[in-house]
């Protein structure tokens, strides 16, 4: 089911005058696994809840396929929603939790008892919890509860699956296991899926495409590669991975730091001041070449297979962190030639300030 959000605006009266969502549009293609990524307060959960019908937008529409779902109640939308803290019904057994969505259907639509039970057990198998149907939520671990919550959401044969911080409440080891498992389930069931996360690794690893939200707006929608390698805005550049902004300007399509011309081209414009975002891997220490810049190494520390160095370069006030292979020997106090191999340049005033 192709899901579209069109021009969604939502203001919570209680909070500040800034809207929680400020004209957001998003397309989730049929069968796609879409990650909504952003810092807290960016509006990602609100967007998810509006798609589900749990919040009502001030304006804008939600389409499920060709159908305008905006006027439909939560119950009518038939979404599978997995809550951050799972929201399992503690007074019901695991099997009854999963069967809940089928049990509450009106008599004409409700499958017979035996069929409901069969489907509940089948879903329990799918989420690899076979045999736990008689337990209650209080007797399960966090990871197991998460699986039950997913099975319960899948039981209603949802048109779209929505997950709010699906792994947020779990410890690191369990999160890692569940990620791969969720990906697998998605491949097997093929549900159109949208999930919210504040964890960029989670978003990049799981999603077919990622939508990065900030301050109630979508900054960029793209595949994980696009998001990481071609960030569309300074915010995305700063939020995804590590990046240091360096004051720079462009002339004739080339980026300059101070008077020094880099080998980096920019399509941002023909001339003007701005910032160059560089990741630790974007600067290499090498032999002196015509376009090399002389940098002062301030501090070095070992980081697994790599070495991290903090350097100071002329015409830039702060320090820049770079990553080198551990075989490259650098010491604090050295003055070394560096080259910029990559970087993303943004003109001042372009995009939302990071």
């Amino acid at each position, binding site marked *: 089911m192709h899901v579209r959000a069109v021009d969604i605006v939502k203001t*919570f*009266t*209680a*909070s500040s005058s800034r809207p*929680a969502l400020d004209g957001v549009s998003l397309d989730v293609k049929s069968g796609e696994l879409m990650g909504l990524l952003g810092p*807290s*307060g*960016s*509006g*990602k*959960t*609100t967007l998810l*809840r509006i798609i589900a*019908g*749990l*919040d*009502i937008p001030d304006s804008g529409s939600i389409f499920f396929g060709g159908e305008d779902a905006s006027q439909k*109640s*939560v119950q009518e939308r038939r979404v599978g929603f997995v809550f*951050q803290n799972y929201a399992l019904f503690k007074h019901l057994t695991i099997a009854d939790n999963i069967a809940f969505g089928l049990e509450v259907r009106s008599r004409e639509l409700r499958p017979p008892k035996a069929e409901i039970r069969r489907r509940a057990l089948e879903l329990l198998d799918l989420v690899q919890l076979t045999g736990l149907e008689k337990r209650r939520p209080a007797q399960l671990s966090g990871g197991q509860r998460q699986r039950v919550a997913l099975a319960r959401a899948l039981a209603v044969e949802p048109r779209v699956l929505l997950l709010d*911080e699906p792994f*947020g*409440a779990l*410890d*690191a080891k369990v*999160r*890692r296991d569940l*990620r*791969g498992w969720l990906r697998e389930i998605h491949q097997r069931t093929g549900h159109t899926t949208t999930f919210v996360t*504040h*964890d960029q*690794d*989670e978003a*990049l*690893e799981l999603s077919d495409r990622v939508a990065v939200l900030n301050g109630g707006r979508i900054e960029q929608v793209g595949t994980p590669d696009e998001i990481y390698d071609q960030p569309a805005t300074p915010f995305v550049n700063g939020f995804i991975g590590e990046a240091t902004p360096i004051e720079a300007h462009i002339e004739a399509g080339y980026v300059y730091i101070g008077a020094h011309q880099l080998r980096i081209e920019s399509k941002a414009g023909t001339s003007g001041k701005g910032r160059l975002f560089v990741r630790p891997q974007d600067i290499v220490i090498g032999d002196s070449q015509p376009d090399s810049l002389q940098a002062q190494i301030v501090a070095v520390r070992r980081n697994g297979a790599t070495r991290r160095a903090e350097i100071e370069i002329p015409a830039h006030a702060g320090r820049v962190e770079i990553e080198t292979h551990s075989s490259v020997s650098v010491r604090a106090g050295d003055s070394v030639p560096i080259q910029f191999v990559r970087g993303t340049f943004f003109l001042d005033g372009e995009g939302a300030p990071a």
Partner: protein
Amino acid sequence: MSETLADWAEARPVTIEGRTKAHVKTRSPVTGEGPVLAGVLIAIAVIFLLLFLVLPLAVVFYEAFAKGVGAYFSALSTPDARSAIWLTLTVAAIAVPLNILFGLAAAWAIAKFRFPGKSFLITLIDLPFSVSPVVAGLIYVLLFGAQGLLGPWLKAHDIEIIFAVPGIVLATVFVTFPFVARELIALMEDQGTGDEEVALSLGATGFTAFLRVTLPNIKWALLYGVLLCNARAMGEFGAVSVVSGHIRGKTNTMPLHVEILYNEYNVAAAFAVASLLALLALVTLVLKTVLESRFGDELPGKSRRH
């Protein structure tokens, strides 16, 4: 996916965005009832509370002044009324401090130390709440009454307890027994022993630590317990009724005086005395509400109120 990428995923604090308190009371499309049902529910609740709580209170004050302000004050200034008021104040002035002392001792022993049988002891302390007031009075009659276990001995030594003030005090102490203790035990168990241990390590004596560290920590909960204890002590009817003997001017407390006046069809006077007790209840409620709203975090959890 790659191990390294997964390795980078460290646990971060969970923020629940867009789910702040503002959500809770504003009507979200699914967490509230429809306007009709909501209206019906609110109407039922409000009418029920008005009928069962507000109306009786209003009646007390209305009936108290039904025969005019003059009648009201003359009802309060009869010698019998005055002696009833005096006895009620006296009884409360003895019973409440006794239970404060007990509450402090019990809370110190129970909350600051571990020992076997602790939860059983707490159950015993709560016991008077489960005993009917009339039964509470009865047990003292069975112990100290003329035909009671200690009756002959007391008579031989010319000590009067039943049908006298000591009996009234004892019955009052019994029915108000747990009020202070249960507030303090609950709070001090939450607070633990850390503050006192710091005080001792800084050279304070045990008593100084109690006075300068414990007491300031528990003062609002203590006041809260005292408030409830006092309200019950001044208002107790059943238990006191059994042991008092209803001797006018001698063993009549205010609630008993209300009963006597009422049974004599002196309704306005009965309500006049009752209005004083109702006023006490109102003051208690106001102070209690203030304590809960201002110092709620210095009171134990609000789930077990009697």
